[in-house]
């Protein structure tokens, strides 16, 4: 499984996810990939009114990786603030047609 990749500005070192055309901090336009490992849940919600093609209910979380925050699906039915998670690339929806794949978080 590929670890999650974020984008580090080559000029000021600021990490972002998702990628921008210009760095939010210094407006430079050049980035390198950086790998992330373990993160901590900052906040979470369990959505019952989900959009077509998504799991119901759907657990979403904002996870912090050493100061960098990222939103993604949390694969847990018992989410907790401060829960330790690791990122993985996995399925996000199972709608007919193209299957969506992206970041999601799994409890460590």
């Amino acid at each position, binding site marked *: 499984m590929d670890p999650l990749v974020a984008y580090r500005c080559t000029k000021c070192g600021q990490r972002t996810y*998702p990628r921008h055309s210009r760095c939010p901090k210094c407006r430079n336009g050049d980035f390198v990939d950086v790998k992330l490992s373990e993160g901590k849940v900052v906040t979470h919600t369990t959505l019952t009114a989900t959009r077509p093609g998504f799991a119901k209910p759907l657990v979403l979380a904002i996870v912090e990786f050493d100061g960098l925050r990222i939103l993604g699906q949390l694969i847990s039915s018992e989410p907790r603030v401060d829960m330790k998670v690791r990122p993985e690339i996995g399925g*996000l929806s199972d709608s007919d047609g193209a299957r969506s794949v992206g970041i999601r978080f799994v409890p460590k």
Partner: protein
Amino acid sequence: MRDVAVIGSGVTKFGKHDVSVLQLLAEASMKALRDSKTTNEKFGMVLVGNMASGEFEGKSGIANALVSDLALEPAFASKIENTSGSGGAAFLAGWLSVASGQSDLSLVAGGERMSSVSTERATEIIASLTHEEEFKQGVTLLSFAGLTARHYMERYAAPREAIAKVAVKNHDNGCLNPNAQFQKRITVEQVLSSPIIADPLRLYDFCPITDGAAALVLAPLEKARSFIGKPVRVAGVGGATDTHVVHEREDLTVMSAVKRAGENAYRMSGKGPKDIEVAELHDMFTLMEIIQSEDLGFFKKGEGWRAVEDGVTSRSGKLPINTSGGLKAKGHPIGATGVAQLAEVTRQLQGVCGDRQVEARLGLACNVAGFGNNAVVSILERT
């Protein structure tokens, strides 16, 4: 730049309608033209706030359609789109058109017809304003609200009941607004026992899906009294943005677009938060009204819920918020909201709000786009 006045307003009933958004816009506009006594006047510009007429009804170019329907040619016209901040953005554009001298009379209308599609489809249309990396995760604006609420409540130990009370207050106000979508009172118990939608938030924490339109007529202040007796002066207008992606926000409990737009409007008006006596805020969900009240400087960060609990923001309190019923009880036709907020503030300052009238000389409206992506704050003054 010359001083601008609001000389008339018009609002349709908010709710479910079987007519097109164009018809709703025309109805609100006709009411505003009559209210401002400008039915026989030549207009310079027509600005129309609307988010998604294409997605909801398959119609584009609705500003041009409205001009012709109202026989206002050759006035320049344009749709102004800023998602749920479209109405406020249309007002900012309308104000600019008159202040600059480009137009001597401008019509600002805002409307949305959402019931033409299913609730599911409407949710999808609204969610399309998010970043692709958020959208593919299955987010809706309601999920951002849930994420924010959990975080706010933990950081500030805000009681769940105080947050629920925003909905109770706004329903109470809505009962006195004949145009409001909901005309019934609710209790804290009802809010807290309504179905969970995005925990910890429930159905009654959220505003509904609505059809409706509102309109304002703007004129130079120096000419305003040639039309009507009680023009309302535009004292300040400001707009600003925050990050598109919600998890990039510096502080999840602060909407800095609201903060900056507010600072810009206060600066222009020469007034501050303490001078505001009535306000219409963007309560897309209960806690959002509280967050805006803090970011606009009315209360300290994390303390806004106390004001709700103590009745400070009720009609009889020191700073009535959302006397119209807010988005929660009045309804939220996306493009209409920013204009309807200003219509309410205008009417409060003109003293024509009947049973929900409060005493105010200076009022504020805050219209928010997306989940705090963008905000327009306007300050109006009784003349």
